């Protein structure tokens, strides 16, 4: 516990200490918080990002974050959907 707090306070020594404590290999590129598992870092980093547009309308190509938004969407070309 104590050692970790020291790392937090000591930016310059970070590189060196990271080698000493391989436990904290995964550092968030947005906020520099430390994680021990790469998947945990991935989950955390999603918080920093803007939502992805995964679902897209096959007619007009517009992207949506959610399927229900896609279903509700009406555009000029696909009004008949």
């Amino acid at each position: 516990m104590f050692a970790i707090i020291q790392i937090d306070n000591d930016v310059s020594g970070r590189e060196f200490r990271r080698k000493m404590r391989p436990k904290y290999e995964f550092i968030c590129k947005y906020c520099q918080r430390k994680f021990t598992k790469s998947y945990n870092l991935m989950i955390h980093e999603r918080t920093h990002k803007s939502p992805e547009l995964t679902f897209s309308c096959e007619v007009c190509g517009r992207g949506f974050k959610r399927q229900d938004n896609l279903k509700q969407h009406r555009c000029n070309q696909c009004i008949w959907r």
Partner: protein
Amino acid sequence: MVQRHQKNKMASEQPLKKKLRRGNSSNSADETDFIHITENGVANDLSAFHLFPANVNEDDITLNAVNLEFHGSKSVFRTSELSESDEKCIEDKTEDDRKDYPTSSCYSNAHITSCENISLQAAPNMVICTNFGKKNEQETEDLNKQQMMVDPEGEETETFHSYLVKQCLCGIPDRVLRKPFEGHQIIDENGSRLAMLSEWSTQQVLQFLSNVQLLFDVYLKQNNNGHICSQIVNICNIFVHNEHNLVEQILSLCETRDKYVNYLAAKVFSSFLIIAKTYINNEWLETIVSFLTIENTDYVKMNFALEIIKRVVEWKNVDIHVLEEPQSADVAGSSTQNVDININCVTVPYSDAESYDTSGIKGLIIKSLESKWPELINKVQYLITHNSSVEAQTCVLTFLALWESTISVKANLSVIDTKPFYAHLENFVGMLNSNLPPIIWKQLLSLFNEVLCYGSTLALQDMLPEDTCQLAHLIVRYVKDFRLLDSLPYRRSEGYTVNSFVGTIPSTQPTQSNIDKTLLQKMILLVLKSVAITIKETRSDSSDSSVGSEDYDFSHDMQLIARSIRDVLKKVDVFVKVSLEFHPETPFSKILIHLFSDQDDYMIEAMVCTLDIKTGISYQTPLAPDFIAMLNPVHSFIEFLKIVSHDAEILLDYLVSNETCFLLYLLRFLKYTRRNWDVFVSSCYEGGASRTNELDNTMTVLIRLKIQIDRLVSKNLFPYNINPVLRLLEICENLYEGNEYS
């Protein structure tokens, strides 16, 4: 220097909440929420500065942002995320212009999903159609007076605006281009000269600021797209190089006591900082932060400064560069379809990553804020306890919202830069008592919930920061020993109303709801997070000490902690049952899901907390059967599936979007299920729920979800690596079918 600026590059201006709307809204012209104007001639004069043609699409936030915000709009997407407009609401509501809040459906976006609401408030000189009356006549008179002062240069401003709406200033005569920024000729004892901004009429200033805001909005949006109209770049350079001393002049507008001018000037100035980035004069920042600690507090200036800092801190970089985005992005679609875009526009490419980066200006402004922080904390503490005036409370609320934004994971600030802002939190826990106004309670609870960023961060870390743990301990102690729950002012008292956006505020109008559910939700979530953090910290302390002799102490510690945690959760259980009038026998898992049923991000984070509490506390510690039943994660999941109508598509939406921590929840829940398959099966049959087979119901949803994920993965459409979840779903399916798995 110009070179340096040319390289600047920024993401689109939409703060996160607005950004969400891009994806949400559909794309038709009937969604525009333009303001309806009476036909007394007002429309013509005002159209130049804040009315957009009907064919400007609602989706095109950049264009409408000015319009909406100018009218003090409350663009609210979640009741829990109101910080930006809270304080304005109070301010407005306590004045007698409350009636101006339209209820008519013509102001709401009927099209969109449940989570959007927009209400507009009349701006000065604006008359909303529901609002005929005496006020109307007086405003027409005011307007006539102002018209006489508007010189012919107004035309250039209008031309300028019409070009801006088309998002291109190419082809605009240089005279017209510069005129709106050079100001108006006035004649005084010294002869003819250019008037300072502060000498302009309110209408002219608002018109000017609206145009500048739109200019910045277009710049930032095009910046995000990778190409900016060269003339827009030129005119923004005029600002960045501070020709005509415009920067100081805009800052000086905080002297005016017009709340609309103040509001817009703060917004313009924050956009300016985001465009200029670190190419700024440090004195400007010093001026701003000096407003925070003026000895004889000037609340208007203080709030002005807080708003500017808050906007810069909250600025959301779009992290996927538009050039990497699939063609499908609706950014281009909405504007090209409805507005004539000048195809001859000469653009300048802006695409290097460095020019995107706002961390420089964010860092500068955070450093400036830090220098005033201790003094500011003292001042705010004093205001909370000693000054109940609307002006003071507005500053308090803006301050708390700024604090929350500063430490928010979403601000993308370095945890090293924000460390100083974690001090002093404990003083504010002590202020939570029944004398504190509900609206400040709410803001403080939001702040603490943000500090305890469990689902996004802390749940995923092995070592938790000490200051964060201390806050969690304090909350647990206050609930256990100091009746924190009982002092929560969630019941509406005489003379108050529960506003679904803002919370409990003074009002004479009666409401249906007698309780402020948002306050309850924030309080309970905070307690659950605090408990989960306390347990996690105890466990990681122990796992860190490899010395065998400490094991006994750990187990002893854990038993003590388990006892107090049980005590705290029992209090939560009773408290929620009483406040929401549940039958005393209702299972805890059920009341939690129902408490949060209209707030999915809270609900899912609460589920992560209870799951982690359950797995953390039962580790090496025998628990009382009633306590085990209370925390049964399977029961919570079954209740949750009922809320989402057993619809696997909704679960998929939760997984794909990052608005909730559902990915983390599902991952952990599936791991728990795999490890405790027998418990899972037996829990599905118990709970006295009904004779329906919850095992089949639950597994059907999970198997459908697996198929849907599979489909997206095979088309390469899943936005991140979902394999760990997919594998767990397969394992659970195999267990369900009684198959062996490897």
